[in-house]
Each structure stands twice: as structure tokens, then as C-alpha cells.
């Protein structure tokens, strides 16, 4: 197979290495260094997609990031990526790609009927059509729009690739490796600065790769290659290709996405596909260059209409011809380089220049090479459906309003150049304002907002000499401020062709009687007529026009369309372009994959997993784990064929009957030390703390300043000025921050220090009527009798040679103890408890049994202390001291908190004593009342009471105090259940609390 559009002698690709690939099922080959786009063009393939709205045939328009058409579905190593730009995707062996937005095929697309119905699809079509009737929206309109909208399809499989994040700091971050980026990087690096130079493309050099200039005694490209080679060898420099800086955030934080293996057939086992860099830079140099914009003419979306700079890049970088009979249509000098490059490759172009009589060196050169140039000439319309076959051209009057002598000439491509648009996205994202420069008909960054500077053509400077001089100087100045070094390099001599002024002409008028579509936004099919319609309908703000017509809203973000759109609005509105203004630039500059954003934080890595020191014992003993905050806790220990219900019931029953042990390591623990500790606790908790003796524990409740319960737990006085506070597992971190706030900000005069000791202690709760007997066995030398260690007592004791703390506290309502040892001894303690417990029928129990035990006792926990309840609501009002002030006390005087029918905790039992009540059910009087039914309360927690052998729930109920004995209904629309219930006391077991004191 030969590649009839491949040039033998030009190009930077490796013609010794063939690469085979498939496009739309057909096999082709290209060469190492090709993009998918250049390889397809080399094979004469120009039809690659269909446009968004009208499904018109689409080819290639650009050669890089500005490409609006050639969006493909890519297949690689069993994975697929949607919406990949063929102009950026490098070719690899076995690459497969398909066209998107076409059905059944790109050659015959049924959606193209929209093209012939386009009278029905004007600007705002969707807004106008899909509004009425409202009931049609979900079932008819939305599915239709979803089907019609969008390009590629995202994979539904788990992504096997790895992605990672990296944090980096530097003195100068330089975005773009064109002449300004290279010069400033080189000057700064030589002056000792830590530099990161990022290039989006695989090849460094930007415009130097394709322009006909010399620097010093080298070609532009050789100069770039040598600078890059030297920078790569410097220790203070990081040079990255395939890396797009896509976002400029606060305080000089920039984010860059590096494509590491996208250009390879697959990733190595240990290589991430992409890496996201978060870079904090002292200074930023924006050297992002500029993008050529088109001139608008009839049918300017026909495949074969390309940017002149892209045609040149395809020849010079890839050795590929976009056509063999080119027409070049320009309003400026730069397209002459494209014409000359064609001519050098023995192709005869025709140049149409909208200017009347331009004079410059390069035009002279073109003419002297025998290139046919027609001044004051324009392309009126492209002809051909799936590929350009000819074009109508005409002479244009001096005022650019009249077409004279329209004739048709044969051609197979039209290379268009409407001058250059600086890429100001990053500068604008930094917060800088922009200013319009009449000379170049485009916006450039105004005064820097953060620590950034824009250089080269991104700043509207289009001569190499000035670019290099300024960039060398700025690289030196910026680095000197940071490094205090003074090593200044001379900017090299440059030889380049002087350019004559471009023509402000951007849109070819329609000939009489013709109604050609003249597109502004190629991806979203926004034509001149759509903007005109939007303005006729009263849209004025450019932001509104954008959203109404979708101009500039496609994946190319209007890189080639925005300025022409502004020109049109300004012309119709009779305003200057800067008065119209431009839409806001927002990150990302180019699409970023979700994988790169997420990085390694997926699955189990999305949050830390904390395990107790006894975790491996639980694993070995068939624990089924549950996430409890960041901890993994045993939910139950599975025996035989038990499920959650059977196992947790067995475990809870055994606690009530014999004795159980539960891993409570996860409980938050805070060490409180200092001579004002008692006073501090007295302010933090609602109850009195000043008189708690050493060796005693007390239950406490703490509030937020708004009176809502924040947390509860027991705190033990270990010694005179040392307390051991416990918090709930979930609130541990918040409570510590809360205490630190009061100690540092509100009462800095208190001599108190707090520090988390959660991970320093392993804890085991031993609960049940036989717990004291078991305790005595593991602490044979210690008196643990009711007298020596009463309820709420504390002892330090010796557990077979290991120092332990014993707290006589209970969450289950049974006689119970909590034993703490240093974490390293946790497993030792646990095994001793298990070993000695056999004699007492000890069983370990998990969080589910723990919940059962606390619910039927009426002990409140997170589901009742939900950030909406005050002490009264949860039955904790008995713990409020009348004598002293504390955090949040003043709020309890609020009227709403003292209503006589205030909500309060109650117990709930189903009348049939069988049906479990779903948590979250609403309590109502009349389940048949008209919706919305008045809600009286909600079920906060449910369990199977092992004491009564029937379901039992806790609820927060309006006027709960006076509702005991009443009959209500628990409704769960979610589970489609309505259960008749009776309201009972929340203390369903041992209401007098005798067991804990026994």
C-alpha cells in the first residue's frame, strides 16, 4: 500500500518504523511520530466525523489542540476513551479508532437529515421546542436530547489504568516551549532558578518547528533542540513534554496533566497512564503561543478546508500533504509560508489574498517562486459534500462588501488564515483582565493579577526578534529576584522575514441569491445566521449569546470561533469589539480525564483505613467488618450459616446471659492535662466536674454554643491534674478541634493541654453478669470487687505483666468494664481475655450487638445526637447543671427549646411484636391522610430486643413525654411499609439501672 499524500523528503517522523492501525474498521499504516490525524491524511482519509447538530461531514481543521472536528472514540489495550482529538493522539501499534456522532456510519449518517431540515434547528432550538408541555420533559424530550447530544461514549468498565498525583514547587513555571518559553527558561535556569518547562505536544519548540527562521547560526528548530538538550541536563530544571498546564488557581497554584503512556500501546505494570501535577510556582511565564483563526465563508466546514498553519505543520512535521491542488485564502503574510512550503514540495498552490496591494519580503519570495497570487480576492464558498472539489472565488470591492466576477476553480483543499489569536486562557484564569489590541484584532492579557507574565505571541508579539529579546530579559530579571544571582545571557541574533500588516477582513459576504451556511463554531454548528437570529431576538450580553447559540461551548472551547463571533456581534450591534467583551475563560484549558483528577484515591484508597491492634484476631475468627468512620470494625462474628440477624442476636443474648467482649479501640480518646483541667471540663460539659475524685469516671455531655448536643462520653480523673476523656468514634476529631479552639482562642488563660491518645490505647469492653468473674481471672492480683471497684470506678492494674487501666463503665447496661492497654499489647490483652473467658461462655460481639444492647437500654448515640437535638430531646436534661455556666447553656433558654410539647426520645414497639420498623420511618397519626401527612417524629434506631424477643426502636417524637402509651403508625414510603406501633419508654431494659451497679 502506498501513501499517496506522504512526502518523501520532509518531516520529523521516523519513516523507518511503520505502525499499523485501524480507523472505522479499516486497516492503515503510518509512521512512528505520526498523529492519528497525520496518518489518516497521509492515507487520503478526510472524512472523520459528523457535526453536532446537522451531522454534516467533517474532516480535519487544525493540527493540534484547536481541532474542532476530528473527535474520535479511541480503543487501546481493551479500554476505550471517548472524545479524543485525532490531531493530538499519537499513533501506536494496534491503535483503533472510530468516528463518533454518526449512525449507522460516517459515510451514510441518518442524522444528516437535520442538515436539510435546518430551518427547524435555529439558535435556541432546544430552548424553544422542548419547553411545553412540561410533563413531556422526563419521558420524551430528555431521552431524545440525550440520544442526540454528545459525541463519544464513556466506558462503563472499571478503568484498569493507574493515575497519580504529584506536588511540586519551583521558582519559575513556564507554560509552553516555543521561542518565548525556551528563551525565558534558559535565561532563568542559567541564573540558578529552579525551572519547570511544560510542553503540551510531544515535540518541543512550538512555532520554531515549522517557521523559516534562523537563530545565531542555526535553524530555529536546531536552536530549540540544543536548548532543550542543555536544559534537560541541568539539575535545577524539569522539562516535560505531553504535559498540559490546564488550570491557574489561587496563590500561583497551577495544575498540569501529564500524558505518560497515552502514546503507547499499553502502560507498563508500574507506570501510571497519566499524572496530575499540582505546582506552586513563585513566578509563572505564560508562553502558550497563539492559534490561527479562520476567515468565514460559505460552506467553510467542508472536509478539506483547513487552517493554513495546520497545512504547513502537516507538511513540515509529518511530511503529509492535505491536498495536491491547494487554494490558500488569507488576509495576512503568515499563510505565504504555507504556499512556499507547498511549492518546495512541487505542488502549485493558488493564493487568494483579501488585501489590495500588500508589500513584503515573503510575498516577493512567493511571487519569485512562480506562485500564483490573486490580490483583492476571496473564497466565496467551498463546493463538494464529503470533500472539497472546487470553490467559488471572486474579487472583492475595497470596502469588502461586494463580490465581483464569481468564478469556480478546481481544488482539493482550502488553507485559510484570518490572522492569529493569542492564547490567553491561563493569564485570564489567573484573574488578569484582558485588553483588546486593534493592531492584531485580538485580546491580550492586561496587567498581571498574580505573579505571572505573558510573553511572545500569547502577548500579541509576532516577531521572533522581539520575542527572544524580551524573553531572555524577563527570564533573567525574574530569576534574579528569586536567586539573587546575576548571570545574564545575551539574546542571540535572529534572521526572520518582516511581515506586512494584516487585513481586518474576517467574513466573506454572501453573494446575491445564495444562502450558504457560514460557520463560526464548527463543532457546535453555529453559523453567522444563528448569531444574527439571537441578536434579533434580543440577546445582548455575549455570555447570553454564547449560551443561547452554544457558540464556543464545545470541547474546543471556541478556540477558532470566539473572536469571529465577537466581530460579528460588534458589527451588528455597531459597537467596538472590546465593548462587546469576551466570555470568561475557565479551567480546564483542555479536557482532563476523571482518572487523572482522582489519581490513586480510588476504592479502598479513597480514605485511610484504620485497624485496631486486634484486627488480625477478628479476621481469623470470621468477623464480618463494617466501616465505622475511618475504622474497620467487626460487625459480627459469623458462625456456620448465620446471617447478620442471627449472629448479632446470639452475641447480644450472650452478653445479657453470660459475658461478651467487644473491641472498643476506635473510641476517641483525649488526654487532658494541666492544673486548670477540672475547671476546663466544667466549662465544656453540661454537668459538674470540679468535685470528681481521682480514680473516678463520670459521664458527660457537651454542647455546641447553639445548645445542640455535640458529643457524649466518660472522662476519668487519672491523677490530680490528668484526665482521660473519651468521645464517640465519629466525633473524635471534631471534639479535639473544639477543645483546642476554646483553649487557644476563648480561654487562653487556662493552663490545660489536650492531645489525642486514640491510637495509643487498645480497648476491650467486657460486659455481662459474669464480667466481674472474668475480670478477676485476668487480674488475679487486683481486688475488683464491688467495693474496691464500684460503678464509675477506675483502677490501674497488672495484666500478666502488662500495665492496664480498668474503667468500670457500661454502654450495654450490664455489669461491665473497659480494659485499656498500650496499643502494642492490645492483641496480648485480647487473647488473655478470650482464653480466660472460655470458662464463662465468653463470646466476642460486634457493633451490631453493641447497638442492640444500647438501643434496648435507651442509651443515646450518633443516631439520636444527630446535630439537631438538645439535651431535653435525648433525655439528657438531668445532666444540666443549674449552678454553673458552660458552653451552649445560654442557648437552652431559647423559647423553642422550652415549648411544653417539645420533641423527646421514646421507645417504639410494633403492635404485632413481629415487624421490624425501618430506621428513618416517620411516626404519624393517620397514614391515610392526604399527603403531605403531618410528621410527629422519626425512628432513629431499630433493633431486635433480645430481652423481650420482639422488635424495638428508639424515636424522637413531638411531645414524647406525654405520648407514652399512645398508638401511632410508623410509615416508611421508601420501604413501602406502614406499621401500627405503640409508644413506650425509651428504657426498655432495666429502667432503674440496677445491673450496672450490681
Amino acid at each position, binding site marked *: 500500500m502506498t501513501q499517496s499524500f506522504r512526502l518523501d523528503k520532509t518531516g520529523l517522523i521516523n519513516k523507518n518504523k511503520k505502525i499499523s492501525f485501524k480507523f472505522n474498521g479499516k486497516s492503515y499504516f503510518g509512521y512512528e511520530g505520526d498523529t492519528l490525524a497525520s496518518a489518516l491524511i497521509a492515507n487520503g482519509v478526510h472524512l472523520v466525523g459528523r457535526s453536532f447538530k446537522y451531522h454534516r461531514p467533517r474532516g480535519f481543521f487544525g493540527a493540534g489542540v484547536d481541532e474542532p472536528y476530528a473527535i474520535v472514540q479511541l480503543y487501546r489495550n481493551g479500554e476505550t476513551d471517548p472524545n479524543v482529538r485525532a490531531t493530538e493522539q499519537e499513533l501506536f501499534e494496534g491503535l483503533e479508532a472510530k468516528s463518533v456522532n454518526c449512525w449507522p456510519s460516517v459515510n451514510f449518517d441518518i442524522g444528516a437529515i437535520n442538515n436539510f431540515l435546518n430551518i427547524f434547528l435555529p439558535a435556541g432550538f432546544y430552548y424553544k421546542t422542548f419547553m411545553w408541555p412540561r410533563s413531556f420533559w422526563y419521558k420524551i424530550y430528555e431521552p431524545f436530547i440525550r440520544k442526540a447530544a454528545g459525541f463519544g461514549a464513556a466506558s462503563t468498565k472499571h478503568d484498569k489504568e493507574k493515575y497519580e498525583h504529584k506536588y511540586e514547587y519551583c521558582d519559575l513555571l513556564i507554560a509552553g516551549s516555543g521561542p518565548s518559553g525556551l528563551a525565558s527558561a534558559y535565561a532563568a535556569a542559567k541564573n540558578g532558578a529552579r525551572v519547570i518547562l511544560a510542553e503540551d505536544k510531544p515535540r518541543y519548540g512550538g512555532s520554531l518547528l515549522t517557521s523559516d527562521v534562523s537563530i545565531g547560526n542555526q535553524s530555529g528548530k536546531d536552536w530549540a533542540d540544543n536548548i532543550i538538550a542543555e536544559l534537560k541536563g541541568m539539575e535545577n530544571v524539569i522539562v516535560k513534554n505531553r504535559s498540559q498546564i490546564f488550570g491557574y*488557581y*489561587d*496563590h*500561583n*497554584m497551577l495544575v498540569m496533566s501529564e500524558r505518560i503512556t497515552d502514546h503507547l500501546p499499553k502502560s507498563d505494570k508500574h507506570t501510571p497512564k497519566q499524572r496530575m501535577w*499540582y505546582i*506552586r510556582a513563585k513566578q509563572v511565564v505564560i508562553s502558550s503561543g497563539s492559534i490561527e483563526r479562520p476567515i468565514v465563508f460559505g460552506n467553510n466546514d467542508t472536509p478539506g478546508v483547513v487552517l493554513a498553519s495546520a497545512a504547513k505543520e502537516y507538511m513540515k512535521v509529518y511530511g503529509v500533504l492535505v491536498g495536491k491542488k491547494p487554494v490558500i485564502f488569507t488576509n495576512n503574510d503568515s499563510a505565504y509560508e504555507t504556499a512556499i512550503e507547498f511549492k518546495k514540495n512541487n505542488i502549485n498552490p493558488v493564493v487568494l489574498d483579501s488585501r489590495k496591494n500588500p508589500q513584503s519580503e515573503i510575498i516577493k519570495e512567493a511571487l519569485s517562486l512562480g506562485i500564483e497570487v490573486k490580490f483583492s480576492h476571496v473564497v466565496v464558498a467551498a463546493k463538494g459534500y464529503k470533500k472539497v472539489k472546487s470553490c467559488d472565488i471572486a474579487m472583492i470591492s475595497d470596502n469588502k462588501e461586494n463580490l465581483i466576477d464569481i468564478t469556480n476553480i478546481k481544488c482539493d483543499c482550502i488553507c485559510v488564515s484570518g490572522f492569529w489569536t493569542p492564547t490567553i486562557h491561563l493569564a485570564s484564569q489567573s*484573574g488578569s483582565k484582558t485588553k483588546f489590541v486593534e493592531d492584531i484584532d485580538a485580546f491580550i492579557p492586561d496587567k498581571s493579577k498574580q505573579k505571572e507574565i505573558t510573553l511572545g505571541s500569547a502577548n500579541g508579539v509576532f516577531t521572533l526578534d522581539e520575542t527572544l529579546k524580551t524573553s531572555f530579559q524577563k527570564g533573567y530579571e525574574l530569576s534574579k529576584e528569586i536567586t539573587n544571582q546575576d548571570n545574564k545571557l545575551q539574546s542571540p541574533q535572529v534572521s526572520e522575514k518582516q511581515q506586512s500588516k494584516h487585513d481586518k477582513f474576517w467574513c466573506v459576504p454572501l453573494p446575491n441569491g445564495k444562502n450558504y451556511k457560514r460557520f463560526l463554531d464548527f463543532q457546535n454548528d453555529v453559523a453567522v445566521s444563528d448569531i444574527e437570529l439571537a441578536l434579533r431576538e434580543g440577546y445582548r450580553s455575549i455570555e447570553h449569546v454564547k449560551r443561547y447559540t452554544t457558540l464556543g461551548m464545545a470541547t474546543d472551547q471556541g478556540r477558532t470561533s470566539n473572536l469571529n463571533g465577537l466581530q460579528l456581534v460588534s458589527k451588528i450591534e455597531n459597537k467596538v469589539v472590546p465593548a462587546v467583551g469576551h466570555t470568561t475563560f475557565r479551567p480546564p484549558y483542555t479536557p482532563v480525564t476523571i482518572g487523572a483528577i482522582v489519581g490513586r484515591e480510588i476504592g479502598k484508597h479513597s480514605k485511610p483505613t484504620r485497624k485496631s491492634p486486634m484486627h488480625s484476631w477478628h479476621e481469623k475468627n470470621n468477623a464480618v467488618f463494617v466501616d465505622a468512620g475511618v475504622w474497620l470494625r467487626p460487625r459480627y462474628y459469623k458462625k456456620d450459616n448465620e446471617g447478620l440477624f442471627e449472629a448479632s442476636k446470639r452475641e447480644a443474648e450472650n452478653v445479657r446471659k453470660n459475658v461478651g467482649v467487644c473491641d472498643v479501640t476506635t473510641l476517641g480518646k483525649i488526654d487532658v492535662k494541666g492544673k486548670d483541667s477540672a475547671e476546663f471540663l466544667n*466549662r465544656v460539659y453540661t454537668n459538674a466536674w470540679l468535685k470528681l475524685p481521682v480514680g473516678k469516671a463520670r459521664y458527660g455531655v457537651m454542647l455546641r*454554643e*447553639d445548645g445542640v448536643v455535640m458529643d457524649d462520653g466518660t472522662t476519668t480523673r487519672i491523677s490530680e491534674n490528668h484526665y482521660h476523656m473519651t468521645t464517640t468514634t465519629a466525633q473524635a476529631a471534631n471534639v479535639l*478541634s473544639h477543645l*483546642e*479552639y476554646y483553649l*487557644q*482562642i*476563648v480561654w*487562653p488563660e487556662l493552663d490545660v493541654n489536650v492531645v489525642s491518645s486514640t491510637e495509643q490505647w487498645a480497648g476491650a469492653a467486657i460486659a455481662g453478669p459474669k464480667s466481674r468473674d472474668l475480670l478477676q481471672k485476668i487480674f488475679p492480683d487486683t481486688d475488683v470487687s464491688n467495693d474496691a471497684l464500684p460503678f464509675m470506678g477506675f483502677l490501674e492494674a497488672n495484666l500478666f505483666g502488662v500495665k492496664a487501666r480498668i474503667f468500670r463503665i457500661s454502654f450495654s447496661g450490664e455489669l461491665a468494664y473497659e480494659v485499656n492497654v498500650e496499643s502494642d499489647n492490645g492483641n496480648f490483652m485480647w487473647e488473655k481475655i478470650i482464653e480466660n473467658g472460655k470458662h464463662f461462655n465468653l463470646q466476642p460481639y460486634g457493633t451490631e450487638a453493641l447497638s442492640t444492647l444500647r438501643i434496648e437500654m435507651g442509651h443515646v448515640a450518633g443516631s439520636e445526637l444527630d446535630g439537631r437535638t438538645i439535651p431535653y430531646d435525648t433525655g439528657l436534661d438531668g445532666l444540666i447543671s443549674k449552678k*454553673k*455556666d458552660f458552653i451552649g447553656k*445560654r*442557648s437552652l*433558654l*431559647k423559647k423553642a427549646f422550652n415549648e411544653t410539647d417539645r420533641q423527646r426520645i421514646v421507645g417504639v414497639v410494633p403492635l404485632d411484636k413481629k415487624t421490624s420498623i425501618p430506621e428513618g420511618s416517620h411516626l404519624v397519626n393517620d397514614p391515610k391522610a392526604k399527603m403531605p401527612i403531618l410528621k410527629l417524629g422519626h425512628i432513629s434506631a431499630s433493633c431486635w430486643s433480645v430481652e423481650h424477643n420482639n422488635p424495638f426502636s428508639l424515636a424522637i417524637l413531638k411531645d414524647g413525654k406525654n405520648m407514652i402509651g399512645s398508638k401511632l403508625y410508623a410509615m416508611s414510603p421508601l420501604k413501602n411499609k406502614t406499621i401500627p406501633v405503640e409508644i413506650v419508654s425509651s428504657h426498655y431494659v432495666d429502667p432503674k439501672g440496677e445491673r450496672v451497679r450490681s
Partner: protein
Amino acid sequence: MLYIKCPYCGYRSQNEFAYGGDATIKRPELNKEVTDKEWDNFVYLRKSPRGKHLELWHHVSGCRQWIKVLRDTNTHEIFNTYKSEDKVET
């Protein structure tokens, strides 16, 4: 992401800190009679100024100190940072 200079640790990224709100709010003294209005002012009412704002940040994933930050709420510029005990003129 903001870059905040902790007076104890130096420059650190925002994700090490937790925001703590207006630093000029003073809690009423303990055991002192306060009107409903005074109390509501303390608990609920906060200004939302456009411009300079003295605020608390907690260096949660660092030294765990609460610090004061003088920040422009509009531009995110940070003018200065202070230890909690420093008196700041705004």
C-alpha cells in the same frame, strides 16, 4: 488552593487547614447576663464582607494551632497571618 503562612510552620497549602470563621467575634464572658440579642449576635450573626476579613484558620494537619489570617474575601489575597494571641488592627 490558597497558600497560607502558618506563624509556626511556614507556608502550607490550604488543604492542611480548616476554616474557622470571623476572628473578631468575642464570646460573652461566662456567668454574665446577656440579652437574647447579644447572644444571637455571638452564635449566629456574621458579616459577609467583600474585602478585608480577619478570620481564624486551624492548622489541623499541622501544628494544630488556631491562627488568624487577614484575607481579602474578593481576591483571596492574604495580607498577613498572626498567632492567636497577637493583637491585630484591622
